[in-house]
């Protein structure tokens, strides 16, 4: 037995990467695993269909200026595009995010991860990066590409100079929407070993808060209660970021505060749940 072992095991004398990069290993492994799934690729392709529609719209307006009257290309177009992509943010969150930590909990993988030289925050950062990568690919990337297409089709920077705030607004709106979705989904994923249960919880929270808003609006007759809805708060912030008239009476700062609280609570849940040992009281 030992003769065979001597041929196959030896001490390692090579280089080691500096510490602090383990999150990139986790992130790339997760991204590769997702890209290997045909169902997921189909979902990502679907998420780019609105981009194609908007691209055709921009092309049509550039070629036929009279179309501008009923298909205007302005800051609102990009705002609507960012909001439309919210549907795909939801589905990508469900597909990618629900199992990110839940599967590791089910397979007792946390003790394997955390016995390696990485901090818990690195593990969380790696998992979060997977979700952020795909969510930004479905929101920020096509939105910025639409701007690039507009400039390319029109052959001038006129639109860009006239709407200087659009690019920062797109970036800010996408980043806020994506971070809120990703962090809350990751926190939910750390609460259960079942991906289905996580998906149901996430769906429930989104729809329940929306339904609450509907009921409270009906009862009070005011949209001041939009702060109870996660999507309502996101839309409220997006209006402010794109400098559009607010569609809800809820102050923008209240929406910002509610979303910030959601992120803080989610991070707190992650801090408690992502541990090398599960302490049962």
């Amino acid at each position, binding site marked *: 037995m030992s003769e065979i072992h001597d041929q196959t095991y030896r001490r390692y004398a090579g280089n080691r990467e500096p510490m602090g990069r383990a999150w990139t290993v986790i992130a790339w492994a997760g991204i590769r695993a997702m890209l290997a799934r045909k169902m997921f690729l189909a979902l990502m392709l679907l998420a780019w269909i609105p981009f194609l529609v908007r691209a055709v719209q921009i092309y049509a307006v550039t070629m036929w200026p009279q179309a501008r009257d009923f298909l205007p290309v302005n800051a609102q177009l990009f705002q609507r595009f960012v909001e439309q992509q919210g549907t795909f943010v939801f589905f990508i969150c469900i597909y990618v995010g629900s199992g990110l930590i839940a599967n*590791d909990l089910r397979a007792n993988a946390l003790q394997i991860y*955390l016995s390696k030289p990485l901090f818990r925050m690195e593990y969380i950062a790696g998992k979060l990066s997977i979700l952020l990568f795909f969510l930004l690919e479905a929101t920020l990337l096509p939105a910025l590409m639409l701007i690039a297409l507009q400039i390319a089709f029109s052959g001038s920077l006129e639109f860009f100079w006239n709407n200087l705030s659009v690019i920062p607004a797109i970036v800010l709106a996408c980043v806020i929407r994506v971070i809120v979705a990703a962090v809350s989904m990751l926190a939910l994923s750390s609460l259960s070993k079942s991906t289905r249960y996580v998906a149901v919880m996430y769906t429930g929270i989104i729809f329940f808060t929306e339904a609450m808003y509907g009921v409270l609006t009906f009862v009070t007759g005011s949209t001041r209660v939009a702060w109870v809805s996660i999507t309502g708060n996101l839309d409220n912030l997006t209006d402010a970021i794109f400098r559009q008239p607010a569609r809800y009476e809820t102050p923008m700062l209240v929406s910002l505060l509610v979303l910030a609280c959601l992120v803080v609570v989610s991070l707190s849940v992650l801090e408690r749940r992502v541990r090398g040992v599960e302490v049962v009281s």
Partner: protein
Amino acid sequence: MSASSVVLDHVSVAYGANTALRDVSAVFPTGAVGLLGPNGAGKSTMLKSLLGFIPPTAGRLEVLGLNVADRPLDVRARLGYMPENDGHIPGMNAVTFVAYCAQLAGLPKADAMQRAHEVLYYVGLGEARYRNVETYSTGMKQRIKLAQAIVHDPDLLFLDEPTNGMDPKGRDEMLALVHDLAHNKGVNLILSSHLLPDVEHTCDHVIVLDKGKIATSGTIDALKGPAGRVFEVRVKGDLASFLKHMSDAGMECHETDEDVMRVFVPGPIGSAGDDQRRICEIAQQSGVQVRHLKASLPTLEDVFARAIGEQ
């Protein structure tokens, strides 16, 4: 390298109101050290504290000369941990899983993959390395846990119940691997187990934990003591009276799984015949018949029984 791999200095660890380790001070020498104790003695807690998973409520933990509280990543970079429970990364085949673990431990991608193949052959999973880990049998899962623990070439290996759930053949092979790592490959290891033969087969030193405290420690040979001072005894009659007389005479009696008890005779080494005669005299005073009396070799089980005061 220092002569000790792990040092615990007045360490206490608690889970809420339950104290798992109570003011434990111990020095684990380099080489293969067995961490023995009954279930719930605090073995796994000690290993998890050394990994930095559970911060101690008091005391100081040192691994390979590094303070665990100050430099947890440096400690874990030099450690390999084979957990007691099943553990794997979902959706990966064995070679991807082990290479991934090596990358997490800091090995470059190419080196990680090469090491993964090597260690999988080493642990006997070479032919099954492209199978999804979730399809592995219990024995194979134990082996892959060992593979992920050694892939980054740790200086110190923590093995928590490495033979759990393995069949006799698999168990022997696992113990052979552990023995080979410790004695031929120069890897220091701490083997936590409640299976005394596992520890006796692979380790040179042993530390016995009981109820969160160190019950005894030392080299196995020293703890076993000289041969001929342990006897197997079976008596018929008033057992309670016999045990009382034996205890009064300073002899310890421990029950075994069979119907014989093991008797420890303290004091300087005399002839086995003298000790046997004393036992017969005590039996006569107690009014019991001696049905079986035989000199025996001390085993680790005797050490364990004496350390935790098992009656």
